[in-house]
């Protein structure tokens, strides 16, 4: 087997940057949920401050991937690896933005007491953090089974989200003073649910990388 030093090193570099983005997103979601539960605007501000790092990594992936296509003329799986890196980095960047959106909700809640103890939102978030971790693992290990697991986890997240919305809706009906906070918490549910969709997209990208065929796991 002949090594293609420049191409192989470039592909490794793409892998590392994607893992870095994955770690960043996983931690941003965990922190934003922690900030929400403790209504800690300071922690929320910190999350918002760190987001540009994710954008910078996404740009670096686009730059390196374009350079490899232009100078190394990759085909087949090498080419798919780069195309998939573009797509996954786009998903991760959006996941970062959604974590920032949660942090912004925390900023708006500053000084308030939560209308109810949060149970299902942290559960949702835990599942989604695992999804983020596993989606990146499925990419690194080229593990299609793990990639397909995203679809199952996503269903669980969707079910939790529906339950949360129902609960918040009945709270609002019972006490209109809770409307403002209920709306904000339902937004948080929506943001976490969207992050899970992006993790599922990553699973699709991994399946495409390995098999050359694109499944629809978000169906």
């Amino acid at each position, binding site marked *: 087997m002949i090594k293609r030093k420049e191409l192989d090193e470039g592909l490794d570099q793409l892998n590392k940057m994607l893992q870095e983005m994955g770690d960043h997103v996983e931690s941003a979601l965990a922190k934003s949920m922690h900030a929400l539960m403790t209504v800690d605007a300071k922690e929320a501000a910190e999350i918002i401050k760190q987001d540009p790092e994710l954008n910078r990594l996404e740009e670096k992936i686009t730059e390196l991937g374009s350079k490899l296509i232009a100078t190394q003329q990759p085909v087949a799986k090498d080419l*798919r690896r780069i195309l998939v890196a573009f797509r996954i980095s786009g998903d991760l960047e959006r996941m970062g933005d959604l974590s920032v959106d949660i942090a912004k909700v925390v900023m708006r809640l500053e000084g308030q007491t939560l209308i109810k103890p949060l149970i299902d939102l942290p559960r949702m978030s835990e599942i989604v953090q695992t999804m983020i971790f596993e989606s990146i693992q499925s990419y690194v290990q080229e593990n299609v089974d793990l990639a397909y697991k995203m679809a199952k986890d996503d269903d669980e997240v969707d079910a939790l989200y529906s339950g949360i919305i129902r609960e918040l809706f009945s709270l609002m009906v019972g006490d209109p003073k809770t409307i403002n906070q209920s709306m904000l918490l339902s937004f948080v549910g929506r943001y976490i649910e969207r992050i899970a969709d992006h993790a599922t997209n990553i699973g699709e990208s991994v399946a495409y990388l390995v098999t050359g065929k694109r499944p629809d796991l978000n169906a």
Partner: protein
Amino acid sequence: MAIAAPSISSAGASTQPGGGAALAAEQLSIFYSDKEAVKKVDLSFAPSSVTALIGPSGCGKSTFLRSLNRMNDTIASASMKGSIWLDGEDINAPGTDVVTLRQRIGMVWQKPNPFYKSIYENIAFGPRYHGIKNKKELNEIVESCLRRTALWEETKDRLHQSALALSGGQQQRLCIARALSVQPEILLMDEPASALDPVSTAKIEELISELKQEFCIVIVTHNMHQAARVSDKTAFFYMGNLIEHNDTNIIFTNPENKQTDDYISGRFG
């Protein structure tokens, strides 16, 4: 232009020209003395299509290509088993008219090899050999072949000058024009652009995609990206075996065979 597609055998029926003929190798093995250079290859070529033969040096692709119009006949140590079918006729059957065979299956070589004659004579030579004497008819053939290879505008004022005064890229297009002059149905090309600069290469590739409308083209190339650009089907040879034959689009995006994947990815060969 009176050279229609005749049967290559003395008794066989004529076929209609247009779109190129169907050509197929069946269980074809080619030997140089005892060495089996091509091993039991089954491969067919559809009319109006371009097939690229790729593989590392010594994989048998050029030997295979040359067998398709019996160019290996001139190599004393070469022998073969199996069959090559041109519109249902075995091209190696006794009584085959090799001149007619090579008129129907033309060849373009790696290095441009125009005759040491004028541009005009390079093209008129074949038709004249096949019996066309009428000056007007010959003029028409020369102009038509030069137009089809995008050489007419560049050469119409110097048709009677030496072909060797043309640039390398022009000479190669002249060689293609010469191959067209006898109205072949199939064109074999052995690395037709490997000795050319990028602009001439692009012109040859453009020409290939135009000629595909009328001919079946089989091209050997070491340039993987050229294979990806010009061909509809790609056949990957390795150590005399046909490893994978599929749509070019599939070979270069998601080949089935690991060896094919490694080769096209530049990881062996």
